[in-house]
């Protein structure tokens, strides 16, 4: 039963992802805070500060504004881990994209369930953010497929499977660098970095800071934090996959690129003021259209 095997691998990978990604994500978050502090001329907290924060949240009393919010957040976390498992076990890229969208939806519903006006504003904005970046994310998956179709010696058929990247002679970035840049643009939205941190932010000067998580506290808030760490790892994985080809050391290049991209995101985060949603929607969609031009070129190659 080949497909049962595939299923077990995916589930096992999701469990492994659920353990490793928080560790990596936590370190990345720590690095983010140190670098941000240095950019602002401060010393900043210790590297493990995000871990200390979450541990403290975990120890707090369970308090909630209703009986459903926690369940939504747990669902969001489970599906984020599943998306990570699918991606890092070499599974289907589209499936990964869809499952992570499901995870975002559960987080949005958690915010809405509280009926706090601040959470609702955050949830509305988060919905709008999803609408802004979703076209580009789909185009990213399609571009990956079309690029593999051009590179793989398989008579025009490509693959959505992440694992097929290891069968390439050249990395997909050679064909789809405009899509890569487009992905970087919407990555700022997905990583909730300023100027696109509309739904929730870690900059205390914004008009609405916590948005979605306004009414979350204690262990629930800790889980949201861990969820973001996992998401960040997954998104950096998307960045890295552009640079993978049929050698083992391409993984090192991919990791290096992902780290550089992460640094650039921190730089952007510290240098831009929050924009209005109109600008976010329009610019993200224009970027997606440029990605569309890229795949149109691939279609005629």
């Amino acid at each position, binding site marked *: 039963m080949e497909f049962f095997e*595939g299923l077990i691998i995916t589930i096992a990978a999701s469990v492994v992802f659920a353990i490793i990604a928080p560790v990596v994500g936590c370190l990345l978050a720590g690095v983010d805070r140190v670098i941000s502090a240095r950019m602002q001329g401060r010393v900043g907290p210790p590297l493990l500060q995000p871990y200390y924060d979450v541990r403290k949240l975990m120890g707090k009393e369970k308090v909630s504004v209703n*009986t459903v919010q926690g369940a939504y957040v747990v669902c969001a976390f489970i599906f984020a881990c599943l998306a990570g498992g*699918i991606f890092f076990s070499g599974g289907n890229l589209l499936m990964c994209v869809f499952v992570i969208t499901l995870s975002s*939806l559960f987080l949005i519903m958690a915010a809405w*369930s509280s009926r706090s*006006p601040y959470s609702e504003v955050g949830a509305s904005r988060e919905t709008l953010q999803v609408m802004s970046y979703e*076209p580009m994310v789909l185009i990213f998956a*399609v571009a990956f497929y079309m690029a593999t179709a051009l590179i793989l010696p398989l008579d025009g058929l490509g693959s959505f499977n992440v694992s097929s990247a290891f069968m390439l002679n050249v990395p997909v970035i050679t064909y789809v660098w405009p899509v890569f840049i487009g992905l970087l643009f919407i990555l700022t939205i997905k990583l909730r970095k300023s100027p696109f941190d509309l739904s929730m932010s870690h900059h205390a000067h914004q008009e609405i800071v916590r948005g979605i998580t306004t009414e979350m506290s204690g262990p629930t808030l800790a889980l949201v934090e861990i969820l973001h760490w996992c998401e960040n790892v997954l998104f950096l994985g998307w960045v890295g996959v552009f640079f993978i080809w049929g050698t083992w050391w391409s993984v090192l290049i991919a990791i290096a690129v992902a780290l550089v991209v992460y640094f650039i995101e921190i730089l952007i985060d510290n240098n831009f003021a929050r924009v209005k949603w109109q600008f976010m929607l329009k610019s993200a969609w224009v970027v997606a259209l440029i990605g569309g031009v890229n795949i149109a070129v691939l279609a005629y190659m």
Partner: protein
Amino acid sequence: MQIIGFLIIFPLIAALALLLIRQNTARNVIVYISGAAIACGSIVLAATYMGAQAVYFEFASEIVDYLCTAVSCICVVIIVAFAVKYKNVFAAILALIQMVVVLYVEFSFASQMEVEFGLYVDSLSVIMSLIIGIIGSGICVYAIGYMEDFQAHEPETAKDRRPTFFAIMFIFLSAMFAIVLSNNMSWMFTAWEVTTLCSFLLIGYTKTEEAIRNAFRQIIMNLAGGIGFIVALWFCAAQVGTLSFADFLSIGINNPQIVAIPITFLAFAGITKAAQMPFQTWLLGAMVAPTPTSALLHSSTMVKAGVFLLVKLAPLFLLNPIASVMVMLVGGVTFLLCSFMAISQSNAKRVLAYSTIANLGLITMCAGVGTPEAVWAAIFLIVFHAIAKSLLFLCVGTAEHHIGSRDIEDMDLLFERMPRLARLMMLGIMCMFIAPFGMLVAKWAALVSFVNMDQVALILILAFGSAATFMFWAKWLGKLAGVAGQPKNVELDVHVSEWIAIMLMAILLVFACVALPVISAYMVEPYVVEVYGFLGQDISFDNLFIASICVVVVVIALFAGLGRSKARQVDIYLAGVSKDNEKREFQNSLSGQTVATARNWYMNDIFGEARIAPVGVIFNSVIMCCAIVLALVGITLI
């Protein structure tokens, strides 16, 4: 073959009984029993022919031919009578034109042209029969309770016209069965016209000024489509030399040139019926009718007849570039723009209507692409849309009667006011737009087929349209999800027939999502293989399997996981001292009381109807005119 006869004739008998017996309890019993019988009939049909090759039945009868012509004429007479009564010249003229063409075609060509195999069953008609038989009858059962409430809201003096209402619903089912099971295209046309007339009568049921206006809009657009259909039959008979649908398809595959004109006109007929732009207004107008009507029109009948025809023609679109481009673009533009416009609507039924039109656009797009993968996707879109949309309509209808509004803004706290209904509504909404549910799996397959055909425009349309879809469903979902305090539960007196129908749809939905790999293997793939000889690159089985496991997780979370938390409950933060959490009232800085209010986003200046609708109407009209002119002057690009 007896079972086909049963499916077509039995609903007519039920309709007659409903017209004659006017006593309430008796009517309810008849509806329950006939609904169950029709559903069982369609299941027997499915069990007999599932996964088999297409079976054609030798059945030709001049009596049926004349009967069909007579029925077409009766339809026209009824329409003209209404047109005279309400002084609508345009509808009368169109109806008369149609009658002239019908009689001309019937007596000059069709009478000499015998179709030996009048009826058939293949996997697609099995699927359609299941949709019509189970979902259609489920909606009829739902109507028992709904119409009782509806009648109670009418003034005392109003005449009880429920017998007519139920009779038309059952005639509708019969006509739909005839469309999906007839191989004789002139019979199919008659059934096609009967559905047009039935929906005209159902939309105008309330006889308000608005209802009459919208009913006439529907009839005018669909008469135009009907004329397209009969003109196509004319060309079929004159140029192709057959009125057998199966022969028509096989001749078309071997010699695409010869069918270029008929398929363009048939596609036009399908597009009008499927309410694609520029004809979207008839389906939006149909919202004035009682909710069971909307549910029936949107989910299992009427619009599904349109896309059924397009999906049947899909192999020919693959060979006819002009017709294919017309269908793809009309469907694509409709999908994209109607998804945008749905964002700007706050009326729940209008959101559902726009989403229906958008999804039909997606199905149309897939039919236009015409590859095996696209047809696979189109069939699944039909199945899941039918189930999920009927569930949603029934939920909205019930909610409307109990909270007194169909505005999404009034659905605040529905999660606690109508706990079961809200959860079912959430399930229906999630199925419409999010992985791992069926609709999204079908969209995924559609995306793969567009990618394989290098249809970049369609990929972009799908990407942007899906993003808009996320927006309008998620914000509705959010409204439902709100929980605060302990509002009064108002769903205790929901009529039992409504619960039966709603639960039926919900169970079907979960079943279809979880059993998707099985449905694919036993019902959809056999059809695709039979038509094309091969399957194309499908979504691999293990991905489908992961999706169905995810469905189980989400359903368990929705129905068992929510509301179990033991955490200490506190008030929400309202920038002041909370006074009444349920009303979101707080004490402001001047020690007064302030109520916090929040509304969903509608972004009317970006996604408003006034701004977007004209673009689609003009674009699609031009595309269709060009395609028809090119077909008529004989440019086929083959």
